[in-house]
């Protein structure tokens, strides 16, 4: 495939500009660990919350004031928010220094936030009634605001969610309360079906369920499998991707992923065009 020189930081390829994000210091009003090895953080940031759309992320400075280290911000998706209270909640996994810092925040300690960043998830075209959400592990929470919006817009939503073990099935209660039917899979069989969430989705897609559209968020291997399955089934939808970021603003050109375009390919900036990419578009070779 040929490289196509099309996308650069200052080109606005997408229809709607990102609403002007904010930088603010937000106190954390709730912090804790409702799930083993997974953490929740609730932040009070009314101006920022009033701008949020499903699919956007916050860029958090995970270090003490005046410190230089760890240097870069950490991107974390917004899992839910409450406009009247001016709060939003994030779920995260402690995997390194930045997330370890978050897990040690004291209540009311303030965090430097940038956001909302990234494009809101594109909505299904009219007529695409039945929507499947396929989520794995820490990829579950980013789909919760989307599920609520899809329901409000009158779509039929089915959630496939998978995790290593029962205790890590994030936000199950919230999805239940919102009225989203779901199928559970765990790696160890401690809840729902034993095995991979992708296989469960594939089975239902082939044998018992009709879907018009999909969204998926989770580990790279899972996204790749879902892309293969849905592309083969002729379904459209979106993969919710990750990449290593510095600025989150489209300035450093560090967060590229390779996407197909026509007969060729190009590098897309995840923080500007993403974080959702169309099924069939992503090249998983890097």
């Amino acid at each position, binding site marked *: 495939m040929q*490289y196509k*020189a099309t996308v*650069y*930081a*200052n*080109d606005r390829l997408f229809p709607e500009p990102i609403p*002007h*994000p*904010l*930088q603010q210091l937000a106190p954390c009003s709730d912090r804790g660990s409702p799930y083993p090895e997974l953490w929740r953080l609730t932040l009070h940031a009314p101006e920022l919350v009033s701008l949020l759309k499903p699919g956007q992320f916050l860029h958090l*400075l995970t270090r003490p004031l005046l410190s*230089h*280290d*760890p*240097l*870069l*911000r950490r991107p974390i998706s917004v899992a839910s928010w409450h406009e009247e209270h001016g709060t939003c909640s994030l779920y995260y996994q402690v995997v390194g220094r930045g997330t370890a810092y978050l897990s040690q925040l004291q209540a009311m300690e303030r965090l430097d936030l*940038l956001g909302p960043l990234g494009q809101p998830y594109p909505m299904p075209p009219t007529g695409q009634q039945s929507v499947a959400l396929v989520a794995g592990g820490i990829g579950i929470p980013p789909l919760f605001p989307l599920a609520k919006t899809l329901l409000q817009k009158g779509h039929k939503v089915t959630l496939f969610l998978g995790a290593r073990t029962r205790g890590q099935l994030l936000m199950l209660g919230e999805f239940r309360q919102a009225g989203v039917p779901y199928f559970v899979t765990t790696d160890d069989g401690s809840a729902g079906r034993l095995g991979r969430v992708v296989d469960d989705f594939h089975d239902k897609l082939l044998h018992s369920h009709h879907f018009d559209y999909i969204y998926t968020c989770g580990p790279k291997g899972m996204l790749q499998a879902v892309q293969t399955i849905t592309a083969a089934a002729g379904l459209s939808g979106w993969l919710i991707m990750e990449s*290593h*970021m*510095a*600025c989150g*603003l*489209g*300035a*450093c*050109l*560090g*967060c*590229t992923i*390779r996407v197909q375009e026509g007969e060729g390919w*190009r*590098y897309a900036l995840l923080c500007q065009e993403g974080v959702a990419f169309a099924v069939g578009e992503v090249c998983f070779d*890097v």
Partner: protein
Amino acid sequence: MSNSPAQAGVTPDLAVTLGTRRPLRLKNPVTTASGTFGYGVEFAPYMDITALGALTTKALTLEAREGNPGRRLVETPAGMLNSIGLMNAGLEHFLRETLPQLRQFGDLPIIVNISGHTVSEYATLAERLNQEPGIAALEVNISCPNVENGLLFASLPESAALVTRAVREVCDLPLFIKLTPNVSDIAPIAKAVEEAGADGISLINSVLGMAIDIQTRQAILQATFGGLSGPAIRPIALRMVYQVYQACSLPIIGMGGITTWEDALEFIFAGASAVAIGTANLVNPRATVEVIQGLGEYCQYHKVACLAELIGAAHR
């Protein structure tokens, strides 16, 4: 800036003039380091772009470059490695789309950073940009491999001078040659570009480094090596600015890890006439304006009428 309480009195003059033959006058000494500020628009939600002393753009090459494959960023202690690979849309796109956008910032001086594989590529770029209105200066990034011998142009005095001379011949704009810290002695290189007709020197570019994934036992960056930037490199950059100030009489745009106004002052005392904020923008989009504000408050507090008086103070 609570630790530099402003006092009543006259507003200090932060303006600096770089060079004499082709003077580049800036209303304050703060610009952006190439590649860390996009083309400015990305930062407009967070700050007033026109408050900058100047805006330095991302590397521009003759043809579009897609940049490097694979992972491009690794965080390191108080720093980061990047291997972006000069990703940019090329000269024609720049002239058609980007430059008109940059002109919307009015009087803000625009410093265009250029890169090439060959001496003639640099010359072609400079010749073309020389005809365009709205460009205040060129910053010539010579920390690129010369395809003819694989060495960086900036690594030897002879090749550094060769590029400088070629660009000088075709271009009347102020020329700032951007040097790499990855050399054993910076002084002869600075002298060589001075003799070849440069109007100033920018330094430092990022420091060559690497990181290895202990699981895969392989380099994390697909390009193996990357450029280290951020606070981690600041002492190296400061030392080199100090050395270049001693070695030649060209004005210096100092950069490397500058994050706060205190950092910027160190560079000015070491001999920088202006400073560029790089990696700090990627973490705090207001870094530049906070530095400008801090410099003003420092001058006011210490009753410095003109910031330019402070340039090179550490040598006196």
